[in-house]
């Protein structure tokens, strides 16, 4: 087996069974896209055609689903999702096998797929993240028998548009849908907000099935995905459990450690001079990331600063920012909180965007590349500033790439906020278990024990020095943490590759091996 090394020093086989030839990661903007985007077959609609079918079975049969085909889903219903499981149960009943599953992410709600993997209904998985029992079964027992392909949110959109993923049937959960297939995600009893992920799928899938629990007569007035891309509509009792779809009101953490980290991060941002009129900003939904918003707001209020836009993964706090006039616009690819869902339908400055508009690097522009500031969290960060957000230090898959590599590459200033240790496990390591976001796109690490600047960013280091903000070398911080935690033993792996981590441009940044018991 021929081994190659990529730019983050990871050794990769040149060819991986079940994946194909490996293109090694060479840098954040090293791939120059060539050729045309993928195009789907033309559609045909004669006046009077009925798209509404009696049930899911009929829709699947009408789409002519066969063994070996690729089907796609989106995870906006999060832990409350009923759709993915109901479709796979139906496919199982139809005796169809060898399905390639392309999901924007997989959550705890999707654990029933384990039985479909074991029975051979599902033989391929593409996702941004895996958690819980599915992740454990893949990491420890390699139940899929071939690698899961992990892609970033932007990378997934890119791969679909490039034709690297050819979706035969896209299944779209529609909280509100009319009888021709116009739909939105923010009306109806199972509302989830932005339809950012299926917006891409429906444009590049050969067939599209909308599944709704709120069928309304044509014409729906607020349209996120249009009837021009929809083949069939299925009405069901419930597409999800509203209690598990979105959280209630966002509350800023009261955890003093998270607040301390957020306060330090805010000091870095303020000293860096990036918080000025017209700046743009994105923060994750984690405790410290979200708490940064609180400190920023105080500073913006005091200094009468108004930003250009915020984006995300939108949280209620970002909606408050928008409503109180701190930003001109909020771009939203997935809506985390109930207040975000409500805002999307009524505030014209709250803009629904596709995952492609958000972060596809092979577009003529994307929102991630317009960011001034990105606040990220991490499960590990190494002395080269590489970030892991996908696996734990035990080697187990337990997270997601999400949009981290996309926004880190695009943003002018990327700040990682993380505790220096979790339980007794140090977060700063010599080498992260899995490289998800390359260190060359990460600028500053903020922990409760100190701030470290990537040596690549001498400009930021100088600014922080002159502002009197103390920093440490990341190796010093690592040693300081290890004084308290000791150095953990390294995890033992088998040879089998259970995951391939694609960078957003389709190159491979790392692989995940099966954990040895």
């Amino acid at each position: 087996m021929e081994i190659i090394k990529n730019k983050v020093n990871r050794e990769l086989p040149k060819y991986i069974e079940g994946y194909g030839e490996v293109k090694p990661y060479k840098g954040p903007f090293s791939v120059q896209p060539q050729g045309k985007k993928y195009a789907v077959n033309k559609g045909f609609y004669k006046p009077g055609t009925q798209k509404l079918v009696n049930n899911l079975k009929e829709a699947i049969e009408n789409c002519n689903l066969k063994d070996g085909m690729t089907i796609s889903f989106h995870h906006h219903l999060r832990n409350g999702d009923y759709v993915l499981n109901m479709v796979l149960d139906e496919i199982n009943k139809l005796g169809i096998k060898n399905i390639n599953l392309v999901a924007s992410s997989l959550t705890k709600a999707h654990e029933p797929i384990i039985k479909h993997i074991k029975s051979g209904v599902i033989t391929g998985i593409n996702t941004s993240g895996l958690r819980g029992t599915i992740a454990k079964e893949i990491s420890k027992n390699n139940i899929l028998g071939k690698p899961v392909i992990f892609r970033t949110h932007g990378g997934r959109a890119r791969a679909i548009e490039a034709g690297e993923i050819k979706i035969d049937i896209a299944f779209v959960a529609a909280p509100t849908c009319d009888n021709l297939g116009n739909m939105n995600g923010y009306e109806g009893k199972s509302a989830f907000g932005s339809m950012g992920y299926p917006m891409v799928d429906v444009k590049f899938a050969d067939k599209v099935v909308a599944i709704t629990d709120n069928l309304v007569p044509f014409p729906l007035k607020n349209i996120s995905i249009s009837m021009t891309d929809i083949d069939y509509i299925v009405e069901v009792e419930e597409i999800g459990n509203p209690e598990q779809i979105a959280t209630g009101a966002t509350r800023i953490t009261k955890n003093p450690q998270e607040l301390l980290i957020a306060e330090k991060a805010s000091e870095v941002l303020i000293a860096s001079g990036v918080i000025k009129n017209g700046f743009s900003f994105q923060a994750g939904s984690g405790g410290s990331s979200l708490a940064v918003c609180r400190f920023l707001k105080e500073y913006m209020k005091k200094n009468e600063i108004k930003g250009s836009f915020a984006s995300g993964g939108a949280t209620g706090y970002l909606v408050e920012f928008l409503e109180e006039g701190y930003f001109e616009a909020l771009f939203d690819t997935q809506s985390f909180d109930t207040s975000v869902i409500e805002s999307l339908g009524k505030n014209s400055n709250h803009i629904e965007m596709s995952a492609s508009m958000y972060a596809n690097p092979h577009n003529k522009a994307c929102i991630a590349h317009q960011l001034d500031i990105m606040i990220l969290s991490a499960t590990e960060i190494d002395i080269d500033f590489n970030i892991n957000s996908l696996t734990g230090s035990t080697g187990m898959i337990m997270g997601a790439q999400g949009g981290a590599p996309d926004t880190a590459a695009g943003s002018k200033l990327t700040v990682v906020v993380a505790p220096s240790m979790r339980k007794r496990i140090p977060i700063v390591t010599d080498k992260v278990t899995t490289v998800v976001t390359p260190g060359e796109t990460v600028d500053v690490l903020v922990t409760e024990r100190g701030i470290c600047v990537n040596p690549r960013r001498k400009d930021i280091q100088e600014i922080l020095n002159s502002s009197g903000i103390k920093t440490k070398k990341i190796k010093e911080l690592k040693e300081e943490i290890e004084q308290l935690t000791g150095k953990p033993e390294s995890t033992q792996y088998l040879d089998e590759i259970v995951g391939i981590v694609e960078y957003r441009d389709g190159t491979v940044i790392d692989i995940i091996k099966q954990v040895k018991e």
Partner: protein
Amino acid sequence: MGKITKQPKRSRRTMLFSPANNPKMLTMAHLYGSDCVIFDLEDAIKYSEKDAARDLFAEALKTIDYGETEIFARINPLYTEFGEKDVRVLVPAGLRNMRLAMTDTPEQIKELDILLTEVEKEHGIKVGSCKIQASLETPTAIKNAYEIAKASDRVVTMSFGAEDFTRTLGAERTKEGKEIFVARSMVVMAAAMAGIDAIDTVWAHLADIEGFKEEVKSSINMGFSGKSCIHPSQIKIIHNIFTPTEEEIAKSLVIVKAAEEADIENGGVIQVNGKMIDIPVISKAQKVVRLAKASGVIK
């Protein structure tokens, strides 16, 4: 006179309480920026966990670099079975500041002083290195405040504990604090007479931030050097209120500089901007400069 114009001592604006049996807090408490941390071996620790907490804290003292944060332990009273052991284990591990809970009489300080001297000698530690914070929490203690403060040179600060004080007085503790005003004043006065720091009681209503700010302002006005706190969120609020204004700092810097140049400690008299400046004014100016340095406004 000399004592007033000595080099500025370290600032004790905030004393954060933290249980001594929580490994996370042992590694974290000093990171929140308080001037002092008090690891509690007394009320916060169950009887069954006293030994384990003491051992854990001793290991933390040997291992963790607490940087510039002044570390205290609230040790158990010496009349309990745990107090003496706290001293015998923690001083060799590196503890140099201990808060003696429920100090009612100067004899209790003297008893601790004798024990500390013995332990220091036993372990080759310079005699007098270990300092004491006397915690005054009863009417008897308040009555004896000055004698307690003067009972030993080791006493560097004196704190007031309102909860036990009101309990032993038979009063309800209110947010307004009329019932503790006299006691607080007596602690401040005794500390001032002895030339040591007075530290005010905790504010337990975490959600009432405005009430807390008012109490901190009253602490400063009364002459307290700092305030005990029970949550990291209180630290910055206290520090902000303790930070002098730019005008105060500028004025004080001129006075302190003039005093230094005039060698005031040896009896000089100075004039600043046409005004005669006396010792109390210099002392206040030194305090302002010390607080400004502690808050990072000046270096």
